[in-house]
């Protein structure tokens, strides 16, 4: 029961970072391997405002969203778009974007190391206990979960109820067809990239309320987000959300039943099983 609740609570924040990555990959077709660093930057932001000026992370994650959006929008516009334009084939673009976003991730690690040093950091926010079925849990986990859930629902509604959301979904289905009906594909991609980055950063801020971070841990989160997105089937954010809970539960179960040092290995085994048996994702449909 413990495992179930902690796993679900963890899954909520994971869902947020995975949805951010998925929005970027689904619409802009760039697998952003610097996603984890954006998340860590979000965590640093929350930490800095909380310890420096006592601002609640719950306010900070909304406050810095425009900054994260602008930064990620600029990354797409000025670093990725030239690659998209010069690429001769999808494979070529894939290799280029992998290398470029890896480069970006290392640069961000370097910058964060220079600004904050190589220490681990964490802070106490809402560490009061609350009870679920007689068991005490930390409030910060619950609050982060509720916040993440609100974000996900908001995003889902926005994608499915607004014109802009429709545009993004159209581009994610077929950039070619979208171009033909007059959609500015590059603009939509930049928008999705920025939005995805802002969501990931918010996820980082929420995770920082109960996890310990350091400047170079981003790559671990990138891997987790990728595992989730692939498990969820790449296309639908509902798939990613479910997959995030699967990962949260798996990790919590392995950490408490076997060894906390094996969480990533566990995520990996899940990933391998998905690749072997359902390469289209647990909820994805097989491509034709």
């Amino acid at each position, binding site marked *: 029961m413990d495992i179930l609740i902690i796993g679900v609570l963890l899954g909520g924040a994971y869902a947020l970072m995975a949805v951010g990555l998925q929005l970027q990959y689904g619409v802009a077709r760039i697998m952003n391997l610097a996603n984890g660093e954006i998340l860590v930057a979000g965590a640093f932001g929350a930490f800095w405002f909380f310890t420096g000026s006592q601002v609640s992370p719950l306010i900070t994650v909304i406050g810095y969203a425009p900054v994260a959006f602008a930064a990620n929008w600029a990354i797409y516009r000025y670093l990725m778009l030239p690659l998209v334009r010069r690429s*001769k*084939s999808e494979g070529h673009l894939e290799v280029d974007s992998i290398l470029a976003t890896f480069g970006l991730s290392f640069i961000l690690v370097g910058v964060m190391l220079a600004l904050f040093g190589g220490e681990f950091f964490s802070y106490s926010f809402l560490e009061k206990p609350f009870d679920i079925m007689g068991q005490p849990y930390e409030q910060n986990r619950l609050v982060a979960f509720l916040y993440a859930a609100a974000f996900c629902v908001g995003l889902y509604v926005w994608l499915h109820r607004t014109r802009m959301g429709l545009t993004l979904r159209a581009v994610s289905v077929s950039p070619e067809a979208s171009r033909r009906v007059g959609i500015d594909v590059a603009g939509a991609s930049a928008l999705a990239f920025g939005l995805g980055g802002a969501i990931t950063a918010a996820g980082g801020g929420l995770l920082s309320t109960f996890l310990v971070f350091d400047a170079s841990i981003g790559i671990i989160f990138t891997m987790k987000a990728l595992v989730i997105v692939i498990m969820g089937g790449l296309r639908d954010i509902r798939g990613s959300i479910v997959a995030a809970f699967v990962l949260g539960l798996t990790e919590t179960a392995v950490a408490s039943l076997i060894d906390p040092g094996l969480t990533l290995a566990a995520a990996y085994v899940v990933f391998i099983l998905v690749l072997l048996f359902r390469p289209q994702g647990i909820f994805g*449909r097989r491509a*034709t």
Partner: protein
Amino acid sequence: MAAEPHTALSVRGVTRTFGGLVAVDDMSFELAEHEVLGLIGPNGSGKTTMINLISGALKASRGEIVLFGENVVGESAHAIARRGVARTFQLVRMLESMSVMENVETGGVFGHARRWGAELRDHARHNIARVGLAGKEDEPVGALTYIDQKRVELARALAADPRLLLLDEWLAGLNPTELQTGIELVEDLRSEGRTIVIVEHVMDAIRSLCDRCVVMNSGAVIADGTPREVLADDAVIAAYLGDAHV
């Protein structure tokens, strides 16, 4: 005893579905050796899917595809290529980073002939010459015109010494002069006694090149006979022009 013509390809009750969509529906037809068969039909009738099923790019959901006496359903594309099936693609596929020579050599190395070294080079050069590209061996394919790229693709298929050649809209997108050249090229192949399946929209080409035509509509055979017969068939006219015209 009269010499029975050998059957090169026999498609028996082949069906292929994508999710709920039936792209090829219980198709059956035969192709004798040294025969040129036109596979025609309106857009979306399943012609390219049928070619992809024969070449192993897709797997049939049901039915048998018998190549030279053996059922190959379930075999992967490379295994079918090694049985002597070569093809061109609806949209030209070039190996952009390689020269014309290397593109054509690609066909001759891994198929059933397995050439290498000087023999391969001579063979590739010969095939480049016969599609009319002599002298362009060392050019990068990216620098070629569209018809020349189509020629490279044909030369690549021919370099495999195919026992069955599949041409998927090889004449599409050519201007009238180029089209004439293209038709002459395929005519040459036909007079050599090659076994060919041609998917085509260009009716002139079908009339002059094919011994026989199979007409598809909505994934199924609606007519099978000489080009003259099938093009006069009511069902075929209806499929192309809509029922109102009959």
